[in-house]
C-alpha cells in the first residue's frame, strides 16, 4: 500500500507543472464552494437573526385564520383571555421556551396635526417584548435605547413614517383607531423613539404599550392578537414547534371541536425563508460545478498519465504485477491529486475566512447593513473534502481500468 502511494506521489511529481495546475484548479473550486457556503451561511444567519431577534420571534401563535388576513390586522380575530391563559400555560411548561410576548396588533391613523397617515401598531408589554425579541431595541435610531422599549403614552415610530411625516423624538402625535365594534377613538402620544425598518412583515411597525393599545381600542377583556415566542436555541425549532402545536391543538378547541389556534415558525411567516432555500439551491449548483471541475481535470490528467506510461504498464504487467495492483497504482494517483488539491483549497479557505473576520465585508441590504462574519463548519469542510476525493476516484476509475486491462505485449510494443 505504501509503495503504491509512493509510486503515485512520485509519478505525480514527474510532471510537476501539470500536476500543480490541475491541483490548483481543484483548489480554486474548493475555495469557491467553501467561501460561498461560508458567506451565504453568514448572510443567512445574520438575516434570520435580525428577523427572529428583532421582530418575529422564533415562532408565533395566533387565533386560527389570523395570519391569512394579517395584512388588514383584523381586530375580531383575537385570542380570548381563556385561550391566552392556556397558551401561556403550555409555553411555561415547555423547557425549550426562553420567553414570549403577547401583542395586541392594530391599524391606526397617525396624525401630526398637519397631515395623516396610516400606521401598523403593536401593543406590547415592554419587558416581555424585550425578552422575546432582544434585538428590537438595537433598531432604535433616535431616542432612549437603554430604558424600557415603550412607556405609557409613548410611541415608537418606524423611521420611514417619521421621516415622511417629519416627526422627531418628543413630538406629540395623535393615534386614531376604530375598534372591533366600529367606534372610533383617538389619543395623544409622545414620540418615544424612531425605529429603523427591516425586511419582512412587521418590519415597519410602530410600538405602543399594550394597555394604551387596549384603551385606544376600548378593549374590556385581556385579548391578544399574537404571541411571539423565543426559544433557548433556534436549532430546536422544528421539534419544539411540533410539540407545542400538538399541545395547543389538543387543549384549545373551538365550538366545532376543532383546533382554535395556529402556530407558525418564522420561516412560515417571513418571505426570507424562500431566499434561504434559494441560497441552498445555489450552493447545490456550485457543488455540482466543483464535481464537474474535479471530474474533468482529474480524468484528463489520469488519461494522459496512462497514455504516457503504456510501456511502463506493460513492463509492470509482464513482470507479474496483478491487474488490480496496476489499477490501484493509477487510482491512488488520482485520489492523491484530488486530495492534495482539496486540502490546499481547505487551507486557503480557512485563511480567507480568517482574513474576512479581521477585515469584514459590509453589504447594504435594503436599508440594513449586513456585516459578514463567515465561518466554516467542520462538517461542511469534511463534506467538501470527501466529495473532492470521491469524485477524483471516480474520474480515475476509467483510466486505471484501462491500465489494468492492457495487453502486456501491445503495451510493451507501444512507442
Amino acid at each position: 500500500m505504501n509503495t503504491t502511494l509512493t509510486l503515485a506521489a512520485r509519478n505525480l511529481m514527474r510532471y510537476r507543472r501539470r500536476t500543480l495546475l490541475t491541483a490548483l484548479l481543484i483548489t480554486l473550486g474548493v475555495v469557491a464552494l467553501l467561501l460561498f457556503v461560508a458567506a451565504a451561511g453568514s448572510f443567512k444567519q445574520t438575516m434570520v437573526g435580525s428577523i427572529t431577534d428583532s421582530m418575529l420571534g422564533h415562532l408565533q401563535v395566533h387565533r386560527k385564520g389570523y395570519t391569512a388576513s394579517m395584512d388588514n390586522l383584523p381586530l375580531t380575530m383575537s385570542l380570548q383571555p381563556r385561550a391566552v391563559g392556556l397558551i401561556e400555560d403550555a409555553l411555561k411548561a415547555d423547557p425549550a421556551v426562553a420567553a414570549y410576548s403577547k401583542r395586541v396588533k392594530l391599524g391606526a391613523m397617525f396624525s401630526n396635526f398637519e397631515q395623516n397617515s396610516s400606521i401598523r401598531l403593536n401593543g406590547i408589554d415592554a419587558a416581555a417584548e424585550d425578552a422575546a425579541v432582544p434585538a428590537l431595541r438595537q433598531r432604535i435610531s433616535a431616542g432612549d435605547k437603554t430604558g424600557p422599549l415603550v412607556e405609557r403614552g409613548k410611541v415608537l415610530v418606524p423611521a420611514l413614517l417619521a421621516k415622511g411625516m417629519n416627526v422627531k423624538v418628543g413630538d406629540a402625535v395623535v393615534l386614531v383607531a376604530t375598534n372591533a365594534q366600529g367606534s372610533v377613538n383617538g389619543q395623544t402620544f409622545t414620540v418615544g423613539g424612531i425605529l429603523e425598518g427591516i425586511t419582512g412583515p412587521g418590519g415597519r411597525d410602530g410600538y405602543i404599550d399594550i394597555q394604551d393599545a387596549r384603551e385606544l381600542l376600548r378593549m374590556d377583556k385581556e385579548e391578544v392578537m399574537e404571541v411571539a415566542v423565543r426559544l433557548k436555541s433556534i436549532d430546536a425549532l422544528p421539534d419544539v414547534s411540533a410539540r407545542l402545536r400538538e399541545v395547543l391543538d389538543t387543549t384549545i378547541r373551538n365550538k366545532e371541536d376543532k383546533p382554535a389556534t395556529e402556530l407558525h415558525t418564522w420561516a412560515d411567516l417571513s418571505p426570507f425563508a424562500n431566499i434561504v432555500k434559494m441560497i441552498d439551491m445555489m450552493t447545490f449548483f456550485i457543488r455540482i460545478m466543483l464535481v464537474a471541475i474535479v471530474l474533468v481535470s482529474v480524468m484528463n490528467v489520469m488519461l494522459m498519465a496512462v497514455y504516457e506510461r503504456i510501456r511502463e504498464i506493460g513492463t509492470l504487467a509482464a513482470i507479474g504485477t496483478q491487474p488490480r495492483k496496476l489499477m490501484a497504482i493509477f487510482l491512488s494517483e488520482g485520489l492523491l491529486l484530488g486530495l492534495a488539491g482539496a486540502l490546499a483549497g481547505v487551507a486557503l479557505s480557512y485563511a480567507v475566512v480568517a482574513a474576512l473576520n479581521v477585515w469584514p465585508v459590509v453589504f447594504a441590504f435594503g436599508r440594513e447593513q449586513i456585516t459578514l462574519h463567515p465561518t466554516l463548519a467542520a462538517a461542511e469542510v469534511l463534506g467538501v473534502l470527501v466529495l473532492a476525493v470521491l469524485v477524483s476516484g471516480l474520474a480515475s476509475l476509467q483510466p486505471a481500468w484501462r491500465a489494468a486491462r492492457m495487453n502486456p505485449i501491445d503495451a510493451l510494443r507501444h512507442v
Partner: protein
Amino acid sequence: MALIHADNITKNYRMGDQQVAALKGVTFDIGEGAFAAFVGPSGSGKSTLLNLIGCLDHPSSGTLQVAGVDVASLSRNAAATFRGEHLGFVFQDFNLVPVLSAYENIEYPLLMVRGWSEAKRREQVNKLIDAVGMTEQANKRPDQLSGGQKQRVAVARALVGQPKLVLADEPTANLDHDTAYKVLNLMKSMRDELGTSFIFSTHDPKIMNEAEQTFTLEDGRIAGGQS
C-alpha cells in the same frame, strides 16, 4: 525433465483482414540451467515465441509447458501470478520504472508481486545489487545511469525473485559492443551461480556465439535444427 517443452506450437495473428501465421509448428525442449538463444531475422517469429514462453500470450495450438506447468491456457490473473513466481524479464529498452531508484526497481517484484517481508527483501536486493556490481548506484534513478548500468539493474530485477527462467528479448540491441558482452557475461555468471536458465532472442551474430544452445527461426519454423 525439460524446463520448457514445446510440441508443435503455432500462433496465428489477425492483422486487419489477413490471417498471419507467426509460428507454424515449433517443437523443442530446453533443459534447466540453459543459456539459449532464438535467432533469426525480424518477423521470423522469435519474439512471438518468447512471448508465448513468457506467458504473455497463448499459442493457437500445440503443447507448451514451462517449469512443468501447462501455460497454454492460463487465465490473465493466473498468468500474472505464474510470471511473478517463475519468470524474470529483461527488455531491449531496459524498461526500468523511471520514478524508482535502482534499488527500488530491483525491490519492486519482491514488494509488489511477491509480497516479501522487509528484512527478507533487503537481504535479497542487496545480494543481487552486489552481484551485478551496482551497489554504489543503488540510490540513483534510471535517468542517472548509463545504458549498461540500466541493463545490469534490469538483470538484477529479473533475478531477484529467484525465477527458474529469465527471458531476454534483444537484451543487447541498445548497448555498444563491449557493454553488450559485459551484460552477456553477467547473465552467464548469474546462470552459473544461481542455476537460472536464460533464454534470449537476438539477431546479432556475435551475441549468438555466446549462446550454448541456438535455435534459428525462419518464417515461423525452426530451421536447420539446433546447434
